[in-house]
C-alpha cells in the first residue's frame, strides 16, 4: 500500500437538518482509479464534492470530519479554496463547456492561475491538455469554434481537457458518462485508463460495468454509509457485505 493522496476520516455531510453522509473514512491513491458506486441518493456524489469543497456553494451544506490532501486539511484555515480546486479538478455529470471557443475553454484555467508566461506557452498547454484528453486531432483545425458546437462526447472530453490544463493532482468525475451514448462512453473510459497513474482519479458512476471496467478500487455506498471498499475485482466477484452482493446482483438500486 502506497501513501494515500487523499485520506478521509469520519466525514459526515449535512444538508440543513438532513444527514447525507455518515462517518465515512477512505484512502484514495494516485496509481488507482477509484470508483464510487451505489443507488441514487446514497451520498457518493456528495462525498466526491467534499474533495474540492464544491459543497461550499450549496446553501446549508455542512461537512464534519477530516479530509487531507497530501496531509493538508482540505477544510483547514490555511487551505485556499481556489488553490485547492486548481489541485483537485472536476468533471461534471452533464458536459458543461463555457459558451466560448474551444481554445478559450482550455486556456481559461491556466490563464486565471497565471500558468503561462506568454501566448506560445499557453498554446503549448492547450495542445497538451487537448492531446491528453484525446481531442486534439478532432479539434486542432477549429480551435476558435464554440465549445458548445461539439458533440456531447467531445464536449465531455473538452471538459476533461479543461480540468487537466491546470495540471491538477486529482481529477474528480461525477458520473461523467451518464449523458453520453455508448461509443462516447467507451472513449471516455479509454481516456480514464490512459490518465491513470498521472492523476489520482475518483469516478462516481451508476453503471457497475463501468466501475468494473475502469477502476481498480471500488467503494460501495448505501444510504449515506460506506458499506464496502476494496479491490474492484474482489468486490464484484466476492463481496463481503450482504448489501453489496444484493446491489451488484441487481436485487435493488
Amino acid at each position, binding site marked *: 500500500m502506497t501513501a494515500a493522496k487523499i485520506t478521509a476520516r469520519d466525514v459526515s455531510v449535512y444538508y440543513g437538518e438532513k444527514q447525507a453522509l455518515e462517518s465515512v473514512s477512505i484512502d484514495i491513491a494516485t496509481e488507482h482509479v477509484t470508483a464510487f458506486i451505489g443507488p441514487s441518493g446514497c451520498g457518493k456524489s456528495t462525498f466526491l464534492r467534499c474533495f*474540492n469543497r*464544491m459543497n461550499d*456553494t450549496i*446553501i446549508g451544506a455542512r461537512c464534519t470530519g477530516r479530509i487531507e490532501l497530501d496531509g493538508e486539511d482540505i477544510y483547514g484555515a490555511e487551505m485556499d479554496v*481556489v*488553490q*485547492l*480546486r*486548481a489541485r483537485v*479538478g*472536476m468533471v*461534471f455529470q*452533464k458536459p*458543461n*463547456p*463555457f*459558451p466560448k471557443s474551444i481554445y478559450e475553454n482550455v486556456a*481559461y*484555467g491556466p490563464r*486565471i*492561475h497565471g500558468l503561462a508566461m506568454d501566448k506560445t506557452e499557453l498554446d503549448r498547454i492547450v495542445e497538451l491538455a487537448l492531446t491528453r484528453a484525446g481531442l486534439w486531432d478532432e479539434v486542432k483545425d477549429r480551435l476558435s469554434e*464554440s465549445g*458548445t458546437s461539439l458533440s456531447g462526447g467531445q464536449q465531455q472530453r473538452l*471538459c476533461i481537457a*479543461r*480540468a487537466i*490544463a*491546470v495540471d491538477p493532482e486529482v481529477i474528480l468525475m461525477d458520473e461523467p458518462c451518464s449523458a453520453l451514448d455508448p461509443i462516447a462512453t467507451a472513449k471516455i473510459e479509454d481516456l480514464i485508463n490512459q490518465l491513470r497513474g498521472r492523476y489520482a482519479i475518483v469516478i462516481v458512476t451508476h453503471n457497475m460495468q463501468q466501475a468494473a471496467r475502469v477502476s481498480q478500487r471500488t467503494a460501495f455506498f448505501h444510504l449515506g454509509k460506506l458499506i464496502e471498499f476494496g479491490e474492484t475485482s474482489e468486490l464484484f466477484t466476492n463481496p463481503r457485505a450482504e448489501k453489496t452482493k444484493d446491489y451488484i446482483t441487481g436485487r435493488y438500486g
Partner: protein
Amino acid sequence: MRQRLVRRYAAERRFRRSGLAAVVLSIGVLAFLLMSMAASGWRGFVEQRIALPLDVAASASAGEMEDAVAMAAEAAYGADGLDYISESAWKTVRDAFRADSSLAGTSVVIPVPVSSTLSTALRGSGPETLVAAAQRLDAEGKISTHLNTHFLTGADGTDPSAVGIWGAFKGSLFTMLVTIVLAFPIGVLAAIYLEEFAPRGRWTDLIEVSINNLAAVPSIIFGLLGLSIFLNTMGLPRSAPLVGGMTLALMTLPVIVIAGRSAIKAVPPSIRDAALGVGASPVQAVAHHVLPAALPGIMTGSIIGMARALGETAPLLMIGMRAFITTPPDGISSPSSVLPVQIFLWSDEISRGFVEKTSAAIIVLLAFLLAMNAGAVYLRNRFEIRW
C-alpha cells in the same frame, strides 16, 4: 372517444382563433394610432412660406430689416400683409442676405414663413375672409412648402410657427444619459450582489420585497423625492437634466435590479460550477462567465426601464422641468425641458398652430424611443450566447 376528439379539436381552433383576433386587434389599434399621428404630425415638420418681394440696403441693421420686411409685406399684400407673415419672417430675410451678400441693394423675392393664422387658414379653418384670402394666395402661386428646419434646431417659444423640438430633444438626451450612467451600473451591481453573494436570510428577503415594491411606486412619488432631496436638501439646480436624470434613475433602478436578477438566475448553474471547478474565485466566475451570459437579459430589462423613464412626465414636473425655456440646454446643469413634458405643454396651448407641433413632437419622441430600442436589440444580438 371520437366525439371527445372532435370537441378537443374545436376547442383548439377556438383558442387559436381568439389569439389571432387579439393580435390583429392590437396591430390595428397600433396602426391607427401611428397613422393618425403621422397624418396630423407631418405638417409640424414643414412650413408654408409666402413670396415676399423686397429690396433692402446692404447696411440695414436688425431693426431696419424688421421694418423693411413689414413694409414690404404691406406693399405686396395690402393692409393685411403684416398678418400674413410670421413675426420672425425678418430673420429668414436676414439669413438669406447673409448667405448671399450680392442680394443686398437689388430687388429680390424671398419666401418667408407665413403667420400661424394664415397657416391655419390655408388648411380651411379660421375667419372666412382670411380663408378666402389664403385660397386666393395659394391659387396665385405665392405659397410654397418648405422643410421646417427651425423645428428640428430650435427650442420652445410663443409663436407656434417658430417653435422647435431640439431643445426638448437635447434635454431628453442629457436626462437619459444621466439616468443610464447612474442606474445601469448601480442596478447591475446590486443585482449581482443580491443574486450571487448576499447571504440568504431575513434581511435579503426584506430587501427583495422592498425592491419589488419600489418598482411599483407611482412615478410622481419619485418626483417628490427628487424635489425634497436633490433640490431642497442638496441644492442642485432646478429644471436641470442632472436632477431629472437622478430622479428617473431612482425610478428605473428597481426595474433594472429585478430584470438583472432574473437574467442572472437564468444562467445555467453548471457554468458557475465549471468556473469554480477549475479554480476561479467567485468574483471571477461571475465576471468571466455569469455576467456575459446574463448581459443580453439585463440589457433588455434595462431598456424597458429606460423607455419608461424616457416617456415619464410626472416626476419631471415636480422638479421644475416644465419651465418655459427658449434655448436648447448646453449641459446637464442648464435648465431644459424634455420631450414628453414639451408635448404636455404644447398640447395645453390654445393656439391652433400648436396642435400639429404636438403631433410632430410625439413623432420625434417615438422615433427616439424606436432608435433606443433598435440599439438595444442590436446590442442584445451582439452579446447573445448560443448554447
